[in-house]
């Protein structure tokens, strides 16, 4: 009888979701009248793991919130930390059950368009338009949070990936300056492996879209471009193919990346808490590691043995000298559609995302603020870890990773990770890339692979 049980389990959950949706509907309609009420508490969903310095920063923000808006002096602000890997499931559950959702949520900037078009975020256009400090926000990034002319989120901080390395290891391997071409990147990786036998030169996990796109762009290719309102996928242009092939060959022909990264993200198996290229880098088993500056706290948690030697450089382009465009990652803040206190939500966001608070936050975490005024300061060039990333931040791209169906293409259908995994398993290059290209074009245009 097990079949009925499993079928019924799905059925029951779905039925429950349906039943509570009706309740949720009532809740949100009655909440509009109370949107300016004073809440007893506000729930903020943050992504990732709790980091002490971020908690301290948030405590300061809440204090400011209470003084700046005396009417909320008794409002408690609760921060829930959501692991990145669980975010879509948790949003979905909060939306379907109508319960347990946040008032304010952080969103990856590639998530915002998709989540907004599913009806999970409140329209905050009127708040943003009357927000005096909002005019300083980098215009392109605010456009990313705009769906059909309505604003559903505000940019909070940005970040780019680069390549982490150890200064002392570079010196011992005779590398005088970080590589600026792919040829130099591979030869340096091999030199490091010779100097440190048993280590691998450069980690290339197959499930790592946000790094793979840099290699596509770094060869002059594009993932997809918009032509007269429709997406045209470009994974199989000669330039894009050169980037894809280079990344796969880090394992296949150059052997500078271990085979154990096939099917893994940069943090290891999906859902696992140990293993993965980040851990190997911190332990000294991997010489160069692709990730953003935000990885520092996780690397420190694994081992601080080599911390004083950590430094970064931008992902090189195929033939230099400028770096490859880095994916302009980052986080937004949005108001949850079922929140009863939208005015209070917005007031708290305006404190979290004030130019001074957002800049303090970004500086302390290795991110970049979203305000043009703050970006021009020289604070980033002084630290060895940050200087490489700061350089990379000058060359960024986001399209098509901010398109409405990107979350489906990448997080659900895993189109680029599946393609890279197949290539690393030795699948035929042309047919694998062509198939991925067709799927990508279909998903970007229709939301479905076929």
């Amino acid at each position, binding site marked *: *009888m*097990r*079949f*009925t049980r*499993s*079928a*019924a389990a*799905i*059925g*029951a*959950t*779905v*039925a429950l*979701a*349906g039943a509570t*949706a009706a309740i*949720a*509907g009532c809740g949100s309609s009655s909440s509009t009248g109370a949107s300016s009420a004073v809440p007893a508490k506000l729930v903020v969903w943050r992504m990732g793991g709790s980091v002490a310095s971020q908690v301290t920063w948030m405590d300061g923000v809440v204090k400011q919130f209470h003084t700046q808006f005396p009417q909320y002096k008794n409002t408690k602000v609760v921060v829930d930390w959501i692991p990145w890997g669980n975010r*879509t*499931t948790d949003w*979905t559950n909060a*939306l*379907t059950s109508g319960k347990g959702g946040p008032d304010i949520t952080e969103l990856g900037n590639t998530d915002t368009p*998709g989540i907004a078009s*599913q*009806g*999970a975020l409140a329209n905050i256009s009127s708040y943003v338009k009357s927000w005096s400090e909002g005019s300083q926000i980098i215009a392109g990034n605010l456009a990313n949070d705009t769906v059909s002319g309505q604003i559903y989120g505000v940019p909070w901080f940005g970040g780019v990936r680069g390549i982490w390395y150890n200064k002392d290891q570079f010196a011992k391997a005779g590398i005088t300056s970080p590589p600026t071409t792919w040829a130099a990147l591979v030869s340096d990786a091999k030199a490091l492996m010779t100097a440190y036998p048993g280590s691998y030169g450069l980690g290339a996990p197959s*499930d790592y879209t946000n790094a793979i796109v840099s290699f596509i762009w770094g060869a002059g290719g594009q993932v997809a471009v918009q032509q007269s309102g429709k997406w045209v996928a470009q994974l199989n242009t000669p330039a894009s193919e050169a980037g894809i092939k280079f990344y796969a060959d880090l394992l296949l022909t150059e052997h500078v990346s*271990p*085979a*154990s*990264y*096939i*099917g*893994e*993200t940069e943090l290891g*198996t*999906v*859902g*696992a808490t*140990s*293993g993965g290229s980040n*851990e190997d880098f911190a332990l000294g088993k991997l010489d160069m590691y692709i990730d953003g500056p935000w990885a520092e706290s996780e690397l420190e948690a694994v081992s601080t043995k080599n911390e004083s030697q950590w430094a970064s450089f931008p992902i090189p382009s195929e033939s230099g000298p400028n770096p490859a465009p880095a994916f302009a990652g980052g986080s937004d803040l949005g108001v949850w*559609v079922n929140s009863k206190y939208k005015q209070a939500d917005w007031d708290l966001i305006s404190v979290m995302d004030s130019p001074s608070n957002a800049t303090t936050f970004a500086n302390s975490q290795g991110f970049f603020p979203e305000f043009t005024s703050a970006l021009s300061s020289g604070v980033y060039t002084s630290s060895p870890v940050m200087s490489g990333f700061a350089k990379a931040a000058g060359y960024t791209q986001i399209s098509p990773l901010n398109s409405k169906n990107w*979350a*489906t293409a990448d*997080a*659900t*259908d*895993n189109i680029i*990770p*599946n393609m890279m*995994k*197949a290539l690393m*398993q030795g699948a035929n290059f042309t047919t694998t890339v062509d198939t991925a290209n067709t799927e990508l074009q279909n998903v970007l245009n229709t939301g*479905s*692979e*076929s």
Partner: protein
Amino acid sequence: MTDSIQRAARPLWPAGPPGSAPLRVRIATFVRRHKLAPYLLLLPALAGIALVLLWPLIQVALYSFQNYGLPQITGAMPVQWVGLANFTTTLHDPEFWLSLRTTVLFAAVVVPVTLVVGTIVGLLLNRLGKKMAIFVSTAALLAWATPPVSASVLFYWMFSPDGGLVDWALARMPHWLVGSTDWAQFNWATTSALPAYTMIALLVTWQAFPFIAVTVLAGLKTIPSELNEAARVDGASPWRVFWRITFPLLKPIYLVLLLLSVIWDFNIFTQSYIIAGLGNQDEYNLSLYIYDKAFASFPPSYGLGGALALIFALILLVVTAGYVRSSVRQGALT
């Protein structure tokens, strides 16, 4: 019989005012004449099942013909009937066929292996002395009692390229024995479906054989020892004794075990969820595929999940029909 009917009927029709007595008698007669008593007794249970099983099943069936997703739940978009669209989408998805193939191949390998290993251990238990039999059966049942989640994590660690026992041992063996793969860096869980399901097959066999062994042992105890003795006196080898005496007598048990194993191995979810994970779509089996489509995808599609649940239920219904038929045949259900 009469007595039991009276007793069953009484709570349903409590003694009313004096005038109602003839009605009570008439109902009792009606129930008796149409042999309704067993059905009346089943009614409360059926009502319960209808509430928690049947109604959700009907809901699933309804959703499978709709475009039910997040915007429909929040009310941003109306629910629409989409006919067979969810079914055609599923049947046109190459991932569905890949996951079905993985599921079928997995069951085709693991079911016979489990049955053979279980039988061998069952035969062994039958011949061991009392103390040794207790030791072996306890050890086996511990494997059976280990929660699938703990067992999966245990196997994940054993096969991990980061210091796992299996990769460590394989890397130390000569190449002519284990091939030229770089075993020290071999990721069983994520590289591809074959290594992942090799690992899961070992895990599932390890956890499933004790049940087979104990059931076979129970069957063996029912075989009169004279039969075995007579065969042995006639000079039959143990192999011949098994195929000529033991197996024919245990055939009904094997039929049930076979069908149960097929159903269980088709349903593997916990192990594949933990070991293969949601990130590797080339390593999906049917349960993982359904879970992904219904809940883990963004945006989730409950309509698609409903259609898949129905298709999966249909496949297992065919197998279960065989199970019920064989159960009826050997009298287990009467």
